[in-house]
């Protein structure tokens, strides 16, 4: 159980993990207000991917990941992820922190 440093790597690997085994993969979020810490875990009971942070901007990214997982789990692992709001924009455009999409 190693903490993944890169957010994008965490997202890619966890989506891959889910698509490989949608029946047993689960996504867990743990939040501690007193410590200001957020930990995300995706596991299929064989492999475990974890991501921890104390940054507010990572929480905003986590919301997008939540949307991805909601869509995957409710509709099925074969759903086209570009339907998820913001996911396609993230993939096609280079992500620049602090600047808006429309310039």
């Amino acid at each position, binding site marked *: 159980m190693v903490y993944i440093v890169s957010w994008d790597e965490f997202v890619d690997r966890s989506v891959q993990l889910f698509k490989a085994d*949608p*029946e047993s*993969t*689960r*996504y*867990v*979020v*743990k*939040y*501690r*207000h*007193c*410590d*200001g810490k*957020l930990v995300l875990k995706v596991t299929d009971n064989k492999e475990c991917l974890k991501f921890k*942070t*104390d*940054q*507010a*901007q*990572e*929480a905003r990214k*986590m*919301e997008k990941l*939540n*949307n991805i*997982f*909601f*869509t*995957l*789990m*409710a*509709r*099925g*692992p074969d759903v086209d992820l570009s339907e998820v709001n913001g996911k396609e924009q993230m993939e096609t455009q280079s992500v620049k*922190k*602090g600047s808006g999409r429309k310039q």
Partner: protein
Amino acid sequence: MHRPPNKFSPPGGFRRADHQIPYLLCDSREKKSLQCLRICKEYSSEVLLQLDPFLNELTSMFEKSKEKGSVWVTLKRSSLKSKLQKRKLSSAGESIEYRCLIRATDAKKTISTSVGAKDHQRFQASYATILKAHMTALKKRERKDRKKSTEAEKKQGTSTTTKPKKL
């Protein structure tokens, strides 16, 4: 054959029924899983709620855990059917409807709800609102301020950091 009584044997000696109990459990898989479920429920009663009451309870969980404690939220794909029901449905040729099972706990109580394909977007929006409202203890990092502070350090010529930062 009589076994000498010790402190682990039941008082009054072994009865035939006591030996049979494990075999009764293994008799049908359904009985075994129901037994396990009952045991699990005794230890942690998980309350299955509708979407809106779940969101309300989740909000109160976050509020209660502000001083100390954690809130865990788990998302999992599930059909909410037992293995037997799934086998019956697949043999009948019917498609199994999957839902997204959402569980939340604060180590004292557990609440859960399930969201289908139709209502997941509405739930997703409300859920995001709750998280945004409560995850306020996380650090906010402003890059512009950092840029200004490092530029000011360079101008002054005093650098407390040993690593030079590339901007």
